[in-house]
């Protein structure tokens, strides 16, 4: 059995809905990936622990509120503490351009703005994790 790309999709924060996250999850599923979906109201601790237990290749966060500048670094730090610094992380949502650069600088693999074609996200993940 060949390996499968495993992706964790989560929606951190207390507000909002998870429609966008679900659309992305479904597109990735249709592209043949295994999606672990954890839903709304996720704390950084929950996201990091789930990502580690599920041994995902990459974590995708749907961000609406302004907490992105603390959320991404915190999750990355927690994953590192748990011995899983290899897990990549990406995000989608409304994030100011200057923050995007900063996030990519600290190692966030990619930020997708609103209205991104889900096909672009599929391509982005496929390029990083070609299935044998």
């Amino acid at each position, binding site marked *: *059995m060949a390996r*499968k790309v495993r992706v964790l999709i989560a929606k951190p924060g207390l507000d909002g809905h998870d429609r966008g996250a679900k659309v992305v999850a479904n597109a990735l599923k249709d592209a*043949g*990936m295994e999606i672990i979906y954890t*839903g709304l109201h996720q704390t950084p*601790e*929950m996201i990091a622990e789930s990502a580690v*237990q599920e*041994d995902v290749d990459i974590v995708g966060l749907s961000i609406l509120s302004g907490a992105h500048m603390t959320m991404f670094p915190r999750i990355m730090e927690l994953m590192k503490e748990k011995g899983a*610094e290899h897990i990549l992380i990406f995000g989608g949502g409304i994030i100011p351009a200057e923050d995007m650069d900063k996030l990519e600088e600290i190692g966030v693999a990619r930020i997708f703005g609103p209205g991104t074609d889900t096909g672009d996200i599929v391509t982005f993940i496929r390029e990083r994790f070609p299935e044998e």
Partner: protein
Amino acid sequence: MAERPGIERLLELFAEGKVAAAARLITILENGGEDAERVLDSVFHKTGDAYRIGFTGPPGAGKSSLLNRLTGRFREKDHRIGIIAVDPTSPFTGGAFLGDRIRMQAHSEDPEVFVRSLASRGSLGGISNCTDEVIDLMDAFGKDMVLIETVGVGQSELEIAEKAHTVVVVLVPESGDGIQAMKAGLMEIGDVFVMNKADHEDAESAAREIQDTLRLKDIPAGEWEPRVILTSAREDTGIGELVEAIEEHRRYLEAGGHFAGIRRKILRSRVRNALMDRMERRLRQSAGVRDLLEQRMESVYKGEISPYKVVRELEELVSIQ
């Protein structure tokens, strides 16, 4: 990207109790092949102690929500919990949406609760082919209770019955589950029947219906009589009773000396399945078999020899004592 540890190193980290290493080893088991066998060879001696509880039932019955509640109760009793939640792989795309964690959030920060979502992958039923191996790994990792959730479709409920000590069938009042359950053979495999969503009106009568059906079964004296429990995972009612029923079934198995028998049965079926897989793969890969088939099929097409003649010739070729 950082250098990833190899299997030897992963096994060391696993022995130290590192979750990330255990999770990585599960992936290796899922992917199969030589690496998976190496992992199993080295952890197998540490398995055999975990109590396995299977949960099955129709989609949306509340299995994950119940596991979430039950895990809370079992943690109060200091059990270390492994949870395996299996969801189907799409036969068309090979992808899977694994959503059971949504309802299992209460313990997502508890390091003694290890949840792993599995896609059924190559298996046709609702259960992954590597479920046994993942149970082994959690067992060897020190989890003394392994809870397995599978959707009751295809043959999965029968397969779960082959892997678990206690089988819990989760039903809901709506959608005439009573009748469906009987058809699907769920009634045969349940040690405990849960009528969940007891906050709905019809739950009590639906539970009585299940109870009546069970009464029709001829259960010899001294054998286990399946329990029927009303629960609401939403309102957290009936969960204590469910724990009690599961523990009662466990005591019944222990008192009757059934444990060793179950373990032997599980292991025999695993050896058989693994052997069949291996033999099939070797047959498919054998150049000798392929050549002989190619040579002789023409004669079969022409009606000169029967299919069985070819099979006999193949059998001679691969001769097993």
